[in-house]
């Protein structure tokens, strides 16, 4: 039964990857990467049970806790870039 979920998650990961490759904007890629992260959490949780080693859920927990830091870093990057562009037009890109 876990196989159905695993396959659905893997296919969704592939779809997210296609979105990450297509873009078109950088935010689509970040969105896809973030979605990919959540799918990885689900995949790791399911596979821990598929392997019969539920004590390995720590891994999924780690991703669930810290995977969003990357997106916050993107927001901070964009925010700082906006200030730079306001301060010195034409620079920064």
């Amino acid at each position: 039964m876990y196989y159905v979920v695993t396959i659905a998650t893997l296919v969704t990961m592939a779809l997210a990857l296609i979105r990450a490759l297509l873009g078109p904007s950088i935010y689509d890629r970040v969105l896809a990467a973030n979605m990919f992260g959540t799918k990885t959490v689900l995949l790791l949780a399911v596979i821990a049970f598929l392997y019969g080693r539920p004590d390995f859920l720590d891994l999924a927990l780690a991703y669930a806790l810290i995977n969003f830091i990357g997106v916050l870093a993107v927001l901070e990057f964009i925010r700082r870039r906006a200030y730079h562009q306001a301060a010195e037009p034409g620079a920064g890109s």
Partner: protein
Amino acid sequence: MAMLADIASWVLLTLGGAFVFIGGLGALRMPNLYTRMHAASLTDTMGAVLIIAGIMLQAGASLATIKLAAILLFLLLTSPTASNALASAALLAGQRPGEATASSERGE
């Protein structure tokens, strides 16, 4: 009783898999960034809730169930936050909702 839990968990897992897949399809096919974000958030919340609830039924009362509950709680906190942060970033950089996403990258 055990069989009932099994059937319930199968239903939850299958439904979760379906939600995840539909969300992924939406994230690929929707016309612009904000609608794609909407589709992706579906997989992050509904899909995750269903799948993890399904596994929890399989795990029964054990440490694993508590860990799964923690994973679910943190996922439900972090992924909408990430979506919010991403939407803020896109808006700040001048992506307007309601129009097809223009490439903000040079040379592609």
